[in-house]
């Protein structure tokens, strides 16, 4: 029950008045920014990171937890009312929830999303508190080769996220790894890819990359397709409260969504959208009204939204215990830790137990605050959605450049932001995913460090990389993830006969 005591002291830390205030500011800002159309949780966290710069680490991470969960709630609101998912994990919510809103059931859709998120978030955070110490125990015995294998797995799954093209996912990943190479090599002190520019010696800032690629990239993309994208907000008609029938149709999907979301999120493999898709198809099969799916079935919002939140809490497990971010949002959380020189991993649980458990406890606090705040304040959030587009996108860019300049007030950093923004725009235009770039940028240097450490121990013998059972198992999974789709398609092609589509591209 050691972890239970630690959790209690974490709760004591998180419920100090000043920290409650930080949490309140965090959830409010997080919801307000997350509700803006097209802005997902990762960008919300990246945009608001500078706000936390001058706080102490504990206060900052507590505000962070609030921003994280607030951004998720806000994102589901804009998905339902506006059909603009800020990230792929909200796509199902946008699909089914927007149909409900159009049928005049926007209120119950928002309610089932909010309460479902609360239920899933609470259960998943409790599971996180119990699972994390156990994983830390195991992780303490991992060697550099194991860590390297885990990171390769994260790279593989992030860039081959299903539905997209493996070619474009891997290209995005390696562009991120290239960006991660820039700067001084920590082991030999040599500058790489800096070309004598002093500003590049510190490397590419993860927050600059995230804000540039998500915020500037998205704005440029929307501008480039301006006349094609007309958004209509669905007004919230009638009561936001759920009827008894809504409750009875919602609670089982909430629990099933949580059961799917947490374990998948907690795997060091990434892909927050997978549990939402699984939950949707599961609810459709179990439902007594399968014909309603696709036309606004409440189960189709309740399940995936719970799965989304549970997997978001799940991704904190590999982040805290292994230092392994598996989503763009988790990568931003890692950047938040790094700004205080903290390195998440098994050792953090012994060196900074207050911080870790304070963070976990404040996830509970944030979750509860959001439930209390969100439904009554829905009118305020809806008004944020109706900001005219010129002001909205102008404002987003003002905040994006403000955050970047706040972190590093130089013309060079602003140019980096714009350059990465154009890269993000071009990638978006050619349908490349952006998240693998961010993961590659932040995880690349860590992976290289583990690789070189492993090979230094073995005096250069690469066989050391596949010495442990864990690493062998992980590489097998990687091979399956990469080659499985190719093999499947080859089989299908044999059956279909004359299809000439190349296997690598789809």
């Amino acid at each position, binding site marked *: 029950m050691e972890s239970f005591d630690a959790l209690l002291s974490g709760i004591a830390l998180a419920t100090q008045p000043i920290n409650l205030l930080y949490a309140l500011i965090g959830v409010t800002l997080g919801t307000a920014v997350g509700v803006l159309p097209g802005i997902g949780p990762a960008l919300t966290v990246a945009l608001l990171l500078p*706000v936390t710069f001058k706080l102490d680490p504990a206060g900052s991470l507590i505000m962070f937890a609030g921003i994280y969960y607030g951004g998720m709630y806000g994102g589901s609101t804009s998905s339902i009312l506006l059909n603009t998912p800020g990230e792929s994990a909200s796509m199902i919510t946008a699909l089914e929830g927007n149909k409900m809103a159009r049928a005049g059931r926007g209120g119950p859709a928002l309610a089932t999303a909010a309460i479902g998120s609360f239920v899933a978030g609470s259960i998943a955070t409790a599971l996180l508190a119990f699972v994390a110490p156990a994983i830390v125990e195991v992780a303490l015995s991992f060697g550099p080769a194991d860590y390297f294998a885990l990171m390769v797995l994260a790279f593989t799954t992030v860039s081959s996220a299903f539905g997209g093209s493996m070619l474009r996912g891997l290209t995005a990943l*390696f562009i991120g790894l290239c960006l991660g190479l820039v700067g001084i090599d920590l082991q030999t002190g040599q500058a790489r890819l800096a070309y004598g520019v002093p500003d590049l010696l510190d490397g590419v800032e993860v927050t600059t990359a995230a804000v540039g690629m998500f915020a500037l990239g998205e704005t440029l993309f929307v501008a480039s397709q*301006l006349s094609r994208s007309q958004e209509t907000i669905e007004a919230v008609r009638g009561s936001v409260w759920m009827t008894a029938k809504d409750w009875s149709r919602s609670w089982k999907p909430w629990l099933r969504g949580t059961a799917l979301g947490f374990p998948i999120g907690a795997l060091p493999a990434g892909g927050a959208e997978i549990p939402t898709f699984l939950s949707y198809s599961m609810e459709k099969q179990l439902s007594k009204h399968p014909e309603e799916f696709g036309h606004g079935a409440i189960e189709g919002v309740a399940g995936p939204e719970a799965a989304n939140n549970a997997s978001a809490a799940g991704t904190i497990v590999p982040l805290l215990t292994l230092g392994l971010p598996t989503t763009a949002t988790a990568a931003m959380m890692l950047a938040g830790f790094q700004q205080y020189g903290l390195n998440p991993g098994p050792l953090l649980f012994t060196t900074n137990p207050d911080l870790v458990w304070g963070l976990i406890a404040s996830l509970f606090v944030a979750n509860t605050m959001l439930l209390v705040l969100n439904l009554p304040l829905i009118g305020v959030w809806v008004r944020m959605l109706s900001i005219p*587009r*010129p002001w909205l*996108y*102008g404002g987003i*860019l*003002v905040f994006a450049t*403000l955050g970047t300049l706040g972190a590093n007030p130089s013309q060079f950093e602003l140019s980096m932001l714009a350059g990465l923004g154009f890269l993000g725009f071009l990638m978006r235009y050619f349908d490349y995913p952006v998240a693998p770039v961010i993961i590659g940028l932040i995880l690349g240097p860590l992976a290289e460090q583990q690789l070189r450490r492993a090979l230094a121990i073995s005096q250069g013998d690469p066989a050391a990389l596949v010495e442990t059972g864990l690493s062998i198992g992980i590489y097998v999974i990687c091979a399956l993830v990469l080659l499985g789709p190719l093999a499947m398609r080859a089989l299908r092609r044999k059956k279909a006969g004359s299809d000439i589509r190349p296997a690598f591209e789809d």
Partner: protein
Amino acid sequence: MTSQDEGKSRARPDKAVLVIAVVLVGIAALVAWDAAHLSARVSTYSRVGAAAFPYTVAGALAILSLVTAIAAFRGTFPERAPLEIGPLGWVAGGLFLQIAILPFVGFSIATGLMFALVARGFGGKPLWASIPAGIVLSFVLYVLFSKGLQLSLPQGPLERLI
């Protein structure tokens, strides 16, 4: 056109995708060239120096470039809608203007002008209304962030007033 024969009606090779392939192989060459100039291989305690990882990344990018080129010839990239140069130009122009004048006029004026040009790109109000609005917004944010959070933002004539 249905999604099944997407790409087949387009000119082949897909020139834009071919350009991507060329850029990728260019990046690969750049990374490899940079790695070749590192003196890491003399490192005694480890045979894996600072150059090994860059070489791996460069190699992978070269392969991906080749596959991209093949995709360009087969026309398998998704359909793209044409770009609307007007709005795009306003937004890009706003960002460039902000970078160019930031050291001279400070945060509020540079950011305010950027705001106005971006808003114009999205079909917003005339510039005479949005430029002052943008500068006021940026100035308020400057005060909030520099006084409230002690962040140091670039100063100009406006910022020195307070």
